[in-house]
């Protein structure tokens, strides 16, 4: 499987603004991003990379709606249908009393599914090895990783990276994990 992955071309940057500009330039040149690594959430980076609007909102909305439906149907079955309960002299289907639970389950299931959906979409899980490509990417360095596919033009990419003050430019082979281990020593 590892040999199907394209080689990556990496640019290491020191400044956030240079990274953003370089990302924009790479997108305009039509390169395919593997990813852009940053020590913190960089404002506008998603737009610079041309990432589509996140679909996680749909996960939240649909799972929240599902939580609401689970709450109302469950409570209706338990306290009005299967065994009608008389609580405080209220009618057997006391809708107002259900509303707080509907709200709670909407928020609970919506929230948990958002978290799980995020994990699934980003393919992260406990124990996953981080692919960082540069030892300081969690500290004070930014890395742009471009996939070396058919559209890739190495001289142009080098030029863009140099123009935007890249500190270091390097190529890694298809075995990313080895490259990460190597990068750690570099």
């Amino acid at each position, binding site marked *: 499987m590892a040999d199907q992955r394209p080689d990556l071309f990496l640019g290491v940057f020191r400044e956030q*603004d240079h990274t*953003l*500009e370089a990302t924009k330039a790479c997108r305009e040149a039509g390169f395919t991003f593997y990813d852009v690594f940053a020590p913190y959430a960089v*404002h*506008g980076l998603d737009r610079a990379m041309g990432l589509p609007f996140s679909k996680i909102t749909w996960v939240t909305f649909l799972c929240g709606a599902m939580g609401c439906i689970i709450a109302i149907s469950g409570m209706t079955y338990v306290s009005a249908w299967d065994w009608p309960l008389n609580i*405080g*002299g209220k009618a057997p289907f006391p809708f*107002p*009393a259900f*509303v707080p639970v509907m709200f709670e389950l909407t928020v609970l299931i919506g929230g948990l599914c958002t978290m799980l959906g995020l994990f699934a979409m980003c393919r992260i899980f406990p124990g996953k090895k981080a692919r960082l490509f540069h030892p300081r990417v969690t500290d004070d360095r930014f890395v742009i990783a471009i996939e070396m596919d058919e559209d890739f033009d190495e001289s142009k990419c080098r030029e863009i990276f140099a123009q935007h003050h890249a500190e270091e430019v390097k190529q890694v082979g298809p075995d990313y994990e080895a490259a990460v281990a190597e990068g750690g020593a570099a």
Partner: protein
Amino acid sequence: MSEAVHIDEPEKFSFPALVKIACLAAIGVGLATFGLSFLGGADLAFGGWAIASWYVLGFPLFGMFFLIINNLSSAGWHVTMKRVPEAMLQYFPVGLLTIGVLCLTFLFKEHQLYEWAHPVDHGDLHSTLISHKSKFLNIPGFLGRTALYFVLWTAFALIMTRASRKQDVDGDVKHTFTQKNLAAPFAIVFGLSVTFAGLDYIKSVEPTWFSTMFGVYQFAGIVESGFAMLILTLLLLRRLGYLRSAVNENHFHNLGIWLLASATFWAYIWFCQFLLIWYSNIPEETAHYIARWNTPWFWVTFVLNPLLNWALVFFILLPRPNKRNLKTLAIAAVIALLGRFVDLWQYVTPKPHANAAGMPEPHYMPYTTFWQIGIVVGVIGLFLFVTLKALEKAPLLAKKDPYFEESVHHHI
């Protein structure tokens, strides 16, 4: 972030004649509706006036809330639009005038809006309860509290705007600290005064009803309608060619989030008030809802009210693009403003009384009183006139505010 924002729109607002005429026309509609409504009874007329004056008093109170909350949290994003809430604060003296007109209701012995003003002893529990509450609900107390509220509110408006104007001249950061120091105590003053003013002007229409949530319920309505009004005022300024780049879709996105959140907060409080009373089932509390549940008011109180104030606003503004689209944002804001009228209307107008069987029954019905919205339109016209007039007196952009740059480059 790195995109440069060029502000090339005019910095000085001039009140266009056309808008001025529209405001005056609205005031005319309001006064005519108010005058004609006396044909239906003084309590109907003053009821409409109470709705309208408290509705619109909510806007400067919202301006106060907005400035307090942003100062206390050291927010910067609002600085390019802060002249608008500051101008809203200038409505307080005029608001006092509208409450003064409301006080004319005390001259009427018959068809009194506030039953406690001239209590009649029928020798029943109802009369006993009202006389029990007369230590708080009496005319001198009402007038005294009104004076206190307006002294506090106007003092806030004066100190806040003066600090802001002084900063326009010298650019000194100490004025920001003045505003922050003022905001802290006035957060408490705001909370208490809104609660008590809401009790005085609105809640006391049904003096025998008990609700411990009424203060926060009014606060929720004020914040929701206030954000709606702020959005619409900014859109009006935008259409007139002002603040086009300084207040851009990112700022409107923030306001949309606020409107969505405050609508949801309103729904939460509205439902809590109902749920607690429904659950405990105490006659003094449930009478209020029974008068609305079994009558045509049901559709107003339990359907239209949550629909306009929450459901429509919530689902319109839920997707991110709709908060950034000025058209959908404007639609949501208009719906929220209509909802605020419905909310106050269904509280003030029914005026329930016990029928022969001892059950609460509304005195007025929705299909004969919906025109009271005309009075609200009139007082909103008055509010816009005062606010836009006040907006002329200062530069539209607080360029020397330390947060100005941050606000110009606000981006979400």
